[in-house]
């Protein structure tokens, strides 16, 4: 018997809302959206955690500008280091920011290990930056986490939408709650995708317009929070009943 499964439930039981930010496709802005959602919720006075579960390509630490990648402090488990007011956990603390050549079962084991050792304690929100696709990380999150509320990210491109359709279809088949789809990187020439999203049987939560200045804000949370990108995400917060409103 695997002793980690019992512990994972205990470690996550004081988290009110767990939001995996996922997509069928890479490069659609999951990490930036997950990190910025965490920053906005934290700015609004909530106790927030951010977990980077993209084991092959962790990047939330880059967005948050985390310089200190030393081993996290131990206290009958591992205490997630704070970046600003956000409790942040990632495998980068253990990979020494090098490549992690992991296969499927290695990934599942690492996720179980990470969820077992991390002591989040009380949180209003835990945002989870997921890797692209419908692989181990997504399936393990569904199996190990109680009541995840998936937020699905797409761009207006058909290339992204078609993979997102597969992810949404799988989540629905498994009866996993989906908050809806966020459309990222829209520009004036983009096709209208709201109808396509509705046909998937889920909500189009809102649009984040392509922000050509966001790259300059990467690594500086204060700048990220002042960006147009962040402004669009704040509007989406008003459309999701469980996210903290500005009012």
């Amino acid at each position, binding site marked *: 018997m*695997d*002793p980690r499964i*019992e512990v994972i439930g205990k470690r996550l039981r004081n988290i009110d809302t767990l939001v995996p930010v996922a997509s069928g496709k890479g490069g659609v802005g999951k990490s930036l959206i997950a990190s910025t959602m965490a920053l906005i919720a934290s700015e609004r006075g909530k106790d927030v955690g951010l977990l980077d579960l993209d084991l092959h390509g962790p990047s939330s630490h880059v967005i948050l500008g985390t310089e200190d990648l030393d081993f996290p402090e131990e206290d*009958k*488990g591992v205490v997630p280091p704070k970046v600003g007011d956000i409790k942040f956990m990632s495998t980068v603390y253990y990979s020494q920011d090098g490549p992690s050549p992991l296969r499927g079962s290695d990934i599942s084991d690492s996720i179980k290990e990470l969820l077992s050792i991390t002591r989040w304690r009380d949180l209003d929100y835990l945002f989870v930056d997921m890797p692209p696709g419908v692989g181990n990380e997504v399936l393990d999150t569904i199996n190990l986490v109680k009541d995840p509320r998936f937020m699905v990210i797409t761009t207006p491109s058909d290339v992204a939408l078609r993979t997102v359709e597969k992810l949404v279809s799988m989540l629905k088949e498994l009866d996993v709650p989906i908050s809806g789809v966020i459309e990222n990187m829209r520009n004036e020439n983009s096709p209208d995708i709201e109808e396509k999203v509705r046909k998937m049987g889920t909500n189009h939560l809102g649009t984040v317009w392509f922000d050509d200045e966001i790259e300059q804000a990467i690594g500086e949370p204060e700048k990220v929070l002042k960006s147009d990108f962040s402004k669009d995400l704040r509007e989406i917060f008003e459309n999701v009943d469980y996210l903290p409103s500005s009012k």
Partner: protein
Amino acid sequence: MHEWSLAEGVISTAISVAEENDAEELVQINIKIGKLQQVDREIFETALEETAEDTMAEDSEINMEEAEAILECRSCGEKWNYQDSKKELSEEEEESIHFLPDFAHNFVRCPSCESPDFEILEGRGVWLDSVELER
């Protein structure tokens, strides 16, 4: 996994099994410890003892058996013991593997062809092997 998390997992899993089987007493808890995780036995034993306090596992006999960590290269088929690779690792690398044993792939290489693509055949982590119950 950290020793305390590990102990918490072992004790609560053993208690769950006992409860599911309507046991009156949890007589024995048998644990296997894979050497890849490099569990500190002394800390683990203390953690088990403290975690079991005031639970039905308080007086259980706890047995531990260590298993060698055997790795097999997916590229050339070489099989080897992790202990042989350990000599090449820095303290930080060993510490990383202690917390996330699968991250051995980040630091360990096949001694024959230097590939990072190997399988952990046995001795990866901690496992609750069996429990003895009394109804």
